[in-house]
Each structure stands twice: as C-alpha cells, then as structure tokens.
C-alpha cells in the first residue's frame, strides 16, 4: 500500500434548502495515494463534485455545511485549518480544474496575468519572474506561441486552449494533488484527446496525484488506477479499474457499464437492445431507510428496502455497498 496523500473519512455535507435537508454527501470515505489517479464516477447529483469542493473548503455556506468527517491531506486534517491556512493550500498544494473553462477564467484579465498570479501569491515571486514562469507553463501545456499570448484574453482562445490555460494555472505552483472535475466534458472529442494526453504527461512528469471526477467510463478506463463509484451521496463501490470493469459487484456499477453504447458494438451488423437502469435517482431531501438504489435495482428484496447496507469487502481491495455480498443467492440471473 502506497503512502496516503489524501484520506477522506465519513464525510457528510448537507445543504439546507427550502425543500428540506439535502444529504448531498452522506458518509463518504476513500483515499488517494501519492502519485495515484482515482476516477470518481457517478451521475448528476451523486455528490462527486460536492465531495471535491469539500476537500478544498469551497462548500458554499449557507446553504451548505460539512456535518461531519475528516479530510486528511499530507498529514493535516483540512477541517481543522482556518480560512487563511486553507487558502494557502488551495492553488498551491491542491489545485482544481473545472468543466467549463470560460466560467473559471476571469474574462477581464489577460491569461498571462491569471497564470502568474498563484506564483506571486503563493511563492512570492516578483512580477517579472512570475510572468516568465507563466510563459514557460503556457508553452509546456502547448499553447502555440505562448510568449506572445500572455496578453490575450480568455475570449480570444478556443475551448481547448482555455482548458490548457486552466491546467497551466492549476499546475504552476507544482501541486501534490490535482482535482479535475469533468475536465473534458465540454470539449469536442478530438480536443478531449489532446487534453487527456496532456494530463497524462503532466502526471507522469510531475508525480502528482489526480482525482478525476467524471461520468465518462471511457475516460476512467483510460486514465484511472482505481475507481470510486458514487450514488445518491454515497460510495457504492470501490476497486481497481480492472476489477470495476471485469467484475463489477454493485448492481448500479453493472447497470452503468451495460447501459453504455460502445464503439464497434455493431461491427457484426447486429443491434442488441441497451440495458438501461429503470427509474430515476432519488431526491436527496428524501430520507431513505434502506439501500438508496433499491428502487431501481433488479435484484432488490425486502431487506434492501429496510436496512442500509454498509461498504464491505467483496474481493481483493474491492468494496461494495450491497446486501448481495451476504445474500448472493438473491442475485438474479440474466437481468
């Protein structure tokens, strides 16, 4: 077992809304080793983005509040730190990139300034030094003619180029952990390939850990070493990427993998009906007694609707939150 850089234990984040308390993150635990890439997978509203915001202390409060749990990063519990210490870690030791680069870049500041800023703030570099380093970084992330683009504004760049600027900004201070929240979802497929290739190169060359939040199982299969699957605010399965794809245990993970059309499926000319997951995700303000997936699960039985299962080992470093571990005979054949 490697050396744990980030360890989240029993994290709960609630949002106090007019409709009631939304349990956006409900007892989430996982860890990330130094230099490791984890894929945090799940659908809209499963709590994957809220988890990442909690790590860097950016839960909007109110309405949000971290109710409980530990977030240990490089030996410190981030929840014990005051706002100033947390600010020093953010952008310096932990960086984050978001889905839509246009909304995370400042539209009225030139990109050189935006990339140089963390260097001035966190490392105390002079303006000239910071700008020089910013130009190096823009070059490193393959912005063409980077030296001449320092005074360009975000709107002058394409979506892919903006995401490169975001990555340069996130990387300048040499973070130990990069959190990438759907970094390629808004990009076209050929541009996505460029950005993924860039992220792989950065990770290898800089030995950084990557928490990759995505709904795209293709991206996960290509990038991650381990996978954490979330559903309705909880981790429902965790395993190495090959275990997840070869031997998914949780019916939700199985459903996700089966419901995805794959390139080349119709090479033999036949078309098989997609296996969808019936129903919709539960409303987070609703208190659910049993398993949160029970309503959509083809194997669900009485116990599933009464008592919530715990995350238990189902294989080698493979964990799932499902009663089928204790009651394997309840798993139906072909569904």
């Amino acid at each position: 077992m490697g050396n744990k850089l980030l360890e989240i234990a029993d994290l709960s984040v609630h949002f106090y809304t007019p409709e009631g308390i939304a349990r956006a993150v409900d007892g989430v635990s996982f860890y990330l080793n130094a230099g490791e890439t984890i894929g945090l997978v799940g659908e809209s509203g499963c709590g994957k983005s809220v988890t990442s915001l909690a790590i860097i202390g950016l839960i909007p409060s109110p309405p949000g509040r971290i109710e409980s749990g530990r977030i240990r990063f490089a030996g410190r519990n981030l929840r014990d730190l005051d706002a100033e210490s947390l600010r020093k870690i953010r952008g310096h030791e932990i960086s984050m990139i978001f889905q839509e680069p246009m909304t995370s870049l400042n539209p009225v500041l030139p990109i050189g300034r935006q990339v140089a800023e963390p260097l001035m703030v966190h490392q105390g570099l002079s303006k000239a030094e910071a700008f020089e380093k910013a130009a190096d970084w823009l070059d490193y992330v393959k912005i063409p003619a980077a030296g001449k683009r320092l005074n360009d504004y975000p709107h002058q760049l394409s979506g892919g180029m903006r995401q490169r600027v975001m990555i340069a900004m996130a990387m300048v201070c040499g973070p130990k952990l990069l959190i990438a929240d759907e970094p390629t979802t808004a990009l076209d497929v050929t541009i996505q390939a460029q950005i993924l290739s860039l992220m792989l190169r950065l990770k290898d060359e800089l030995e950084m850990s990557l928490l990759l939040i995505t709904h795209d199982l293709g991206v996960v299969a290509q990038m991650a070493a381990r996978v954490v699957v979330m559903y309705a605010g909880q981790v429902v399965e965790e395993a190495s990427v090959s275990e997840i794809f070869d031997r998914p245990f949780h019916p939700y993970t199985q459903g996700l993998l089966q419901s995805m059309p794959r390139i080349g499926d119709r090479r033999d000319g036949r078309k098989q009906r997609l296996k969808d997951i019936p129903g919709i995700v539960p409303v987070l303000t609703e208190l659910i007694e049993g398993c949160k997936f029970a309503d959509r699960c083809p194997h669900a039985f009485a116990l599933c609707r009464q008592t919530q299962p715990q995350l238990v080992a189902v294989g080698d470093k493979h964990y799932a939150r499902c009663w089928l571990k204790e009651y394997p005979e309840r798993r139906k054949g072909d569904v």
Partner: protein
Amino acid sequence: MSETPLLNVVDLVKQFPLGGGMLTQPRAWIKAVDGVSFAVAPGESFGLVGESGCGKTTLGRLILRLIEPTSGRVEFGGRDIISLNRSEMSALRQRMQIIFQDPYSSLDPRMRVADIITEPLRATQHTSRNQRRQAAAALLEKVGLRSGDLDKYPHEFSGGQRQRIGIARSLCVRPDLIVADEPVSALDVSIQAQVINLMEDLKEEFNLAYVFISHDLSVVEYICDRIAVMYLGGIVELASTRDFSVSPRHPYTEALLKAVPLPDPHRRTEPFAMEGDVPNPIDPPPGCPFHPRCLYKFDRCPREKPSLIEAGPQHFVACWLNEGKGLRNED
C-alpha cells in the same frame, strides 16, 4: 437506395452574414453549410456527426425549414419544401418534427404538460380540448410517463422525463421524420440508455425516420443505419454504420473514432491527439478544409478541394487519398 427517399437534400448551402446592419454590408459571410447532399429513406436512421461548429445543427434546422437556405433544395416526399408557401409548409410540418438537446430550455415552463405535448396539434388541426387531453394522455403512456402527469409543469420532471415529454410532443402529429438534435447529450448515462431505447421502440412502432445529430460517436453508431461525418460545413464521409466503424476512409473520421476513449482498461492507448483546432469558418483553409490537421496530406490537398465521390459501394468520401492511389503512410 431503390425506393423513393423520404428526404432528399440537394446541394444545400447556408451562409450567415457576419457584422453589418440595415445599411451596411456584412464584413464577411460564414458558410455554415456548404453544399451538402444526402437522402434518407422512410424508416431509416441517418446520423450526422461532427464537432462543434461543423454545421450539423444548422443543417438540421434547414431540413425542417426552420431557417431559409441560401441555395439548394430540400425535398420531402418528393416535394421541394423551400418553394412552399406558409400554409402548405404548415401542413407539411405535421410530417416532420424536431427534438432538441436541452430538455430544460425546450419546454415552456409556464405551460402544463398536456398543452405542451399537444401544441403541434393545436397549431395544425381543429381539435377540441377534450380530444387533445385524450391524445396527450395516450402519448404520455407511450413515452413511459403517467397520464396522471397531464397537469404538471416541466419543472416537476427530471431531465430524462423532460426529454420524454419532448419526444411525446414530436409524436403527437404522427410524423414520418424526426430531426433529433443531440437528444441524449444532456442526460446521464443510465437515463440516456432509457431514452435511446424509447426512440428505438417508437421508430419500430411508427416507422419513423430519424436524422440523428450528435457529437457522440458511440450513440450515433448504435442508433443509425448510415452516418455522415461533417467538417466545416461539408460532408467528408458518408457510409453505412458498418463501413463507418470497420473501414473509415476519411482521415478525419479515423481521427474521430480513435479519439474516443475506450471503456476498457486492458486496452489502454495513448490518446490519439490530433494536433490543432477546428479552423475558423470565417476564414476556412484553402483546398481540403481538413488538410491543416491531416496526417496524410500531400501537395494536392491545400490546392484543390476534393468532392464527395463513391469510393466503395454506397461509401462516399471527400479526400484525395481515395483517387485510386494508396498514398496512406500505413498502407
């Protein structure tokens, strides 16, 4: 295709002016759709794929004459719809419908579901309120919602359910053709599969033809019988789905297919990162529009624009490599 096509698009062009006003000339013209031709048979699923800005959405709107073309013809059931007057067009609209990408912005938030679904009926036929409610109830059940939902408003539904409402609306006039513009792109994977299955079932039941517009190759490949790949306003390859995935002939198609991350951790490949961005359509490159990014380009490519030729049976491609010579590096 031996039978008469349901939809026949001939050399369609749409240019948008850039800048300019009532009295001033536009600064430039953008060729959003630049000489596109294809045909769709009754009951066929025809896919249009390409990246942002390739003109696929504009083409979808032109097919339904929601915008007017600069030149070219759109024939529906043998009639040129561009020459139809308002009332003739309105009658024809019952046979062609559209489903939009964003299930959140394509439904009027102040209308009840019953009225949303039957709006095309109200617009085109004389029907009583009661008849429309009955029709709406039947349609809701058809798309997997409950008839008890008739009086709800769009905000009371999830994204997937709203897309079902959009589909129900498009079905209410019993169309022959549905243009579906990224209908599942905004949906989560598990919900996406539900909507795809629904569209497949409805196609079967009503013998619908789809023009399915998407940037997601795996979805298009799953749904469609034939696929056209667009780049910078033009079709660069048109083939059966099988030929498309087994033997793509245009370097851009090949790049698109290779860029999709495989959902298989045992087949890890270096992401196939084609250099460069899609060129600016205001100032398209000379010759073949793809040549600045093409791995196989040679001296002819920047000079002359290749036209779409039949390089194999029913397999069309616009690329100089298919002029009979095997110039590809790998061959």
